[in-house]
């Protein structure tokens, strides 16, 4: 597409810090033209190709109709943001995957590392004890969960993609996992739909939430489950 006024890319190629082939020699990153409104729409639509976005949209829908509008709204925000971000990246580098970051080398000295691990463990225990002391579905508990969840998701969103082995997973074994996990989700969904209403529990068809009610009714149970949740989140961030 021709332009009367040179865009940022054109200015970049005329910059004296570029070599004869137009490659940047003085800039670390290429200059990117800000997307126009139509470009943003195309970006968001391109991002809809990611299956994760549709899964999050489905979670947002079912969570909202089962009486958890805050969860639903948060899932919707993340799904739209992820679609836009994935589409924007795809349009910026069409056909190219993200360049993975080099494998991490842990240079932290053993003593400092041990101190950091102990501090994180102590923080996790304090967090679980504090948030677990609040009643379920209260605003303080909600704020604690949303706060930590937001921090962890933002870390994952902005951290560079790590280099991983390129081997394919065995098809039959992977399918077995998919079957078991999808069966579990459908079983939970069928229990949810057989309740008297989406917001009323059923003894005959208990959902996982109903089954965990006795455990989460008391503060120690909530703290233990929260500690496991934090530990799993840490495991995911480290992967």
């Amino acid at each position: 597409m021709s332009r009367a006024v040179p865009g940022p890319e054109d200015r970049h190629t005329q910059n004296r810090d570029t070599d004869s082939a137009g490659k940047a020699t003085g800039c670390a990153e290429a200059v990117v033209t800000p997307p126009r409104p139509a470009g943003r729409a195309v970006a968001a639509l391109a991002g809809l190709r990611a299956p994760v976005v549709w899964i999050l949209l489905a979670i947002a829908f079912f969570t909202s109709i089962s009486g958890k509008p805050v969860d639903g709204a948060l899932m919707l925000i993340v799904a739209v943001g992820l679609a836009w971000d994935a589409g924007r990246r795809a349009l910026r580098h069409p056909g190219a995957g993200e360049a993975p970051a080099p494998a991490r080398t842990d240079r932290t000295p053993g003593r400092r590392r041990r101190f950091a691990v102990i501090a994180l463990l102590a923080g996790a225990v304090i967090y679980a004890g504090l948030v677990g002391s609040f009643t379920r579905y209260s605003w303080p508990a909600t704020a604690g969960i949303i706060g930590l969840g937001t921090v962890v998701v933002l870390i994952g969103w902005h951290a560079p993609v790590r280099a991983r082995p390129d081997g394919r997973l065995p098809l039959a074994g992977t399918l077995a996992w998919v079957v078991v996990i999808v069966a579990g989700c459908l079983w939970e969904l069928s229990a949810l739909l057989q309740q008297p209403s989406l917001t009323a529990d059923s003894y005959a068809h208990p959902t996982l939430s109903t089954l965990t009610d006795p455990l989460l009714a008391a503060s120690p149970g909530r703290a233990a489950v929260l500690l496991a949740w934090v530990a799993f989140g840490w495991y995911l961030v480290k992967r």
Partner: protein
Amino acid sequence: MTWHEVTIAGYLLVVGGIVVLQLLATRTAVPVPSFGELLSRAMRSRTGRVGVLVAWAWIGLHFFAR
């Protein structure tokens, strides 16, 4: 057998399936990926990583948040 027991048996079956697949992956030569390998695969892209982390956050929201 009541519907309550049938529903719980269904959940136990799923949990059993997960345990069996994990044991097959880690303790035998059967070509089944472990749960960790599945997660690594899903988290290879930024979109996948964010999706997995959001699913984790959702679990906390679902059980504790308003």
